[in-house]
């Protein structure tokens, strides 16, 4: 063993070769499993991609740094299942680029948030968390009442489609219109959203005002969609969910 070290110290090319061999093994072990990731994560049949409005909300979620305090992953622990519901599956975030699992929880986990509270609560809570939860330390986000910019949504869907998210050409072309229609249940486009994204998509004025499409609409639509894109996770508990 001492002689090996002695020789490696003296022969620099030998040292280089040794480093390359050792690093290659480490790299192969880390990287090789990713080549089969498409087979490893089985996509559930009922998994739907996010609608353009929800996707815009996701971008706002990232922009405001919500992920810094809220994870989106229920862990494989009994008390997590007890509090939040079934543990998260990799497949649930198969269409997330990037995924927002997180690990730090200053606030509660959001993976099963969709449908837990009303839209009005989310709006009041985002504008001023202390208005509904007096002891909350979450920052206020009053500027979310600003108009939502839908111009980049088509490009965003197209990018995600390149990454394998099943957005059709139809969905990409109509992204901006669909975002607006999802917040206007009485509009002509609302039926198109249902047709393109499925019956489970919520079509409402999420911020309570049908006259304006705001960032609040997008963020609340996103929050209400969390955990509702597939029912696959509920199969781990052997229970059929109500809705």
């Amino acid at each position, binding site marked *: 063993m001492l002689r090996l*070290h002695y020789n490696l110290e003296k022969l620099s090319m030998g040292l280089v070769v040794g480093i390359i061999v050792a690093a290659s093994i480490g790299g192969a072990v880390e990287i090789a499993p990713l080549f089969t990731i498409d087979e490893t994560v089985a996509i559930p049949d009922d998994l739907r991609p996010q609608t353009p409005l929800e996707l815009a909300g996701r971008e706002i979620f990232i922009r405001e740094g919500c992920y810094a305090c809220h994870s989106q992953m229920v862990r494989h622990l*009994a008390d997590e299942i007890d509090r939040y519901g079934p543990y998260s599956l990799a497949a649930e975030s198969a269409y997330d680029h990037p995924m927002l699992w997180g690990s730090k929880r200053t606030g509660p986990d959001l993976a099963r948030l969709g449908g*837990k509270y009303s839209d009005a609560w989310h709006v009041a809570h985002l504008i001023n968390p202390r208005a509904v*939860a007096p002891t909350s330390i979450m920052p206020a986000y009053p500027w979310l009442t600003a108009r939502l910019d839908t111009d980049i949504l088509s490009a965003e869907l197209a990018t995600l489609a390149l990454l394998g998210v099943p957005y059709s050409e139809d969905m990409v072309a109509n992204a901006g219109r669909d975002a607006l229609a999802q917040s206007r249940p009485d509009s002509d486009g609302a039926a198109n959203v249902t047709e393109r994204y499925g019956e489970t998509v919520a079509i409402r004025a999420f911020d309570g005002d049908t006259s304006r499409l705001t960032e609040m609409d997008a963020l609340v639509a996103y929050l209400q969609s969390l955990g509702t894109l597939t029912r696959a996770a509920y199969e781990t*508990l052997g229970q059929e969910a*109500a809705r």
Partner: protein
Amino acid sequence: MSRQSHHEVEIDPITGHETTGHDWNGIRELNTPFPRMVIWALSLAFAYSVVAWVLLPAWPLGRDYTRGLLGLDQGRMAVENYRHLEQARADWVVPFASADFASLATNPGLMARAMPAAARLFADNCAACHGVEATGGPGFPSLADGAWLWSADPAAIAETLRYGINSPHTDTRFSQMPAFGRDGLLTREQVAAVADYVLALSSGNADPDSHGAAIFAENCSACHGDAGSGGLGIGAPVLADDHWIYGGTRDDILATLGGGRQGVMPAWEGRLSPAEINMLAIYVSRLNDGGNAGDGR
């Protein structure tokens, strides 16, 4: 190898280490090998990893992976542990799956176990809107004031919990205050007169012969009852008291009359078990009972 044979072993006088024989303008490089401890630790760690590969889930194989001899699965373990949790609570949770509220609420042994748990469920699920003290807030009804929109009966409260109000659930309760102003059902002058009448109702000195009373009888009493006495069990609040959901100032009342209200209570079926819902229903039905809900607060 030939170079090595030419080199005479040279010992550094200060450290006592062998040198490599390299000489950089008088500076001699020491041959300082890894400490034996580190080599051993590395070897042991490597040996452990080989054992772990054999025993635990390790290598991905396309759609599958090597399961390991121990057959451990974190997901399955978590669900098993969750089932154990459920079993440990079963003796006082399972009885609540029955909807016989009267006999449940009169069983002190059961209630002593269940009500603290219901208080925790309330804090985790209901307090966000209704407040930690269940006193509500603007847009979210107080549950502690004894003013019930539907009914004080635990069975009715359980139904509200299960299906929600104006929720996406197919069996949801439905309740809507129309936008009398915005939708042109009443003129501005009529809205103002009704607002004054409703304000007077809550203070108990309303004039039954006023213009506002006439408009109220025609447009509002179908849901809110004669002179706002409520009690129809359709989610329309009593107006002849001083409990308010959306605020009791004249401006608040004008806003409610003008733009309407359609508050949403989520449906909890699927998120909470039937037993948990019934437990919460009894807990909530007792919230206005002078703090006798039995949560030990």
